[in-house]
């Protein structure tokens, strides 16, 4: 569906120069949409009368363990972006139910939901990320965020070339950052919430531990209730580049593997009922060998 080669519309040369100089406008009347690669980035070109308007969409993945404050932070940041006239949208992933769509709608933020039911919501998220992008482009968002469920510590929802945010909170316990895998270790920005509940010393110690686990990430404190810090985070969202095409794009790291009989509905316990990926616990003490 998308052309893989780089091609340039000759009549649009001045627009291409605009793209390189960083100017772009939102499409208001989309009649035909053509997609083209320029360098590594995918741009949409819309026809509007005899003029071509171009729209580009920024895409950001937000992850984090359950109840860390992802939705609260996103609400504040997206509200902030709205006041800056950025057309924003969000897709929220969860397994059983979520009323978060309401929370966003009430504030005039367009939101979609992905409920995975009896599948892992994070695997479900990766299987649907391209569909999310297409939905976002159809809606003409300037900036779209996906909020994944982050159910297990080994989750790896971030994509190469896409701004990756991980939200965690100060109450998680000082050893928790070490326990969280790719979701935290491969994130570009780590947002720490619930700072008002702990002392300054605890905030410092927790942030220090996070920095040891992911030294290259930008660490920000955001208050999901008052919105303190949301403006700074919104600036970082804005500064991210246009999303690269998701065709052929990669996860920053593999997702945790499963595919054992329990994934297929087996409910009986016992080795005779296990097939597929069944790893056994090693109960003897001793150092881990490679």
């Amino acid at each position, binding site marked *: 569906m998308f052309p893989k080669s780089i091609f340039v519309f000759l009549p649009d040369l001045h627009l291409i120069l605009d793209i390189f100089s960083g100017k772009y406008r939102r499409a208001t009347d989309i009649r035909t949409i053509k997609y083209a690669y320029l360098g590594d980035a995918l741009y949409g070109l819309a026809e509007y009368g005899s003029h071509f308007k171009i729209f580009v969409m920024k895409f950001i993945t937000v992850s984090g363990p359950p109840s860390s404050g992802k939705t609260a932070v996103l609400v504040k940041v997206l509200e902030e972006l709205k006041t800056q006239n950025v057309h924003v949208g969000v897709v929220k992933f969860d397994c059983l139910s979520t009323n978060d769509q309401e929370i966003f709608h009430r504030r005039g933020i367009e939101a979609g939901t992905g409920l995975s039911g009896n599948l892992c919501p994070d695997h479900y998220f990766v299987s649907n990320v391209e569909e999310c992008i297409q939905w976002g482009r159809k809606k003409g968002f300037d900036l779209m965020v996906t909020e994944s469920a982050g159910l297990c510590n080994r989750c790896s929802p971030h994509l190469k070339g896409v701004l990756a945010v991980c939200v965690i909170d100060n109450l998680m316990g000082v050893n928790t950052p070490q326990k969280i895998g790719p979701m935290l270790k491969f994130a570009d920005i780590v947002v720490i919430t619930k700072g008002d509940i702990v002392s*300054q*010393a605890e905030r*410092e110690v927790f942030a220090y531990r996070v920095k*040891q686990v992911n*030294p290259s990430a930008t660490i920000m404190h955001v208050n999901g209730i008052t919105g*303190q810090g949301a403006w700074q985070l919104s600036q970082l969202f804005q500064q991210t580049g246009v999303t690269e095409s998701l065709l052929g794009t990669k996860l920053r790291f593999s997702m945790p593997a499963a595919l054992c009989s329990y994934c297929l509905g087996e409910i009986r316990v016992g080795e005779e009922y296990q097939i597929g990926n069944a790893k056994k616990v090693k109960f003897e003490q001793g150092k881990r060998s490679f």
Partner: protein
Amino acid sequence: MDLKNISINNLLNQYPFSRKFFEVQEIELPEVDFLLVDYLSEISEEFWEDKGIDPEQILFSLEAFIEADLKQQALSENWIDTVAILGGHNKSGEKEDVSLVFRRGSVTTIVGPTGSGKSRLLADIEWMAQGDSPTGRKVLIDGKEPGQEIRFSLEHKLVAQLSQNMNFVMDVSVREFLEMHAGCRKVKDVNRTIFDIVAEANRLSGEAFDMNTPVTSLSGGQSRALMIADTAFLSSSPIILIDEIENAGIDRKKALQLLVRNEKIVLMATHDPILALMGHQRLVIRNGGIAKILETSPEEQKMIHVLQKLDEQWFNLRHKIRMGERIGTADSPGI
């Protein structure tokens, strides 16, 4: 810093603190002359899959880790001369017509009814608000807007804050907590400092606690005392913000002696008359905004002596009651 061609031994010699990085990542590093990259690539695919990280990311993070640490070591003393507050608005949206400057060595108290916004003012300073807090206030450091690096870096610590928090939530012992905090504040003699902090905290509170007590088991007063001693010893921050130090039965005189040093800019929110008069000036907060600024008058300064005498009697009474003694009898009237 060429991490692609460095041997493990050289890495550990040149950057000894990089041990900590591998400890946190739970990767054992043998002290050998192998190249780091070779060693990492020898590790099984399965190991990396289980861990949720790969050699490339390890090198990337290690580089950032070393850079951050070097940067921290190179940081000079935090020295600022003034902090200014430009008024925002109160809870009703009315403009707060205030422009205040606090200099080194000044002690300013903040008074007002509960809920009036004292803690919010302290939070604005801790956050170095640039109109982006609920009050819209602006804080200037040395007359200028503080840059991002100063506001958000984990390394620059301009403000030490004692909030009204009476309890710790962190799941560690006193020793572990102080070690980590001393570690992130780059204290030289960690063991000595920790010892001093616990000793001082015990002087401030009542029942003694030791290094191995989990911080979550400390009482409100003990927690407060530990936070005060921690701030006093670990903090080289030029700005100290104190919120209601009189709570939890702390010996306020001793606490202030520890915290209020020359060369610091101190702001203290309080309900206590003696503490309120201790500042050079006090800010009266009402409805979320600074309503009045009062300089401590000479009469008020004289009052402090009277109040302190009263306070001593009150303190003795309190001590008797705490120790389980009786008051109001002939040989122990109390007053």
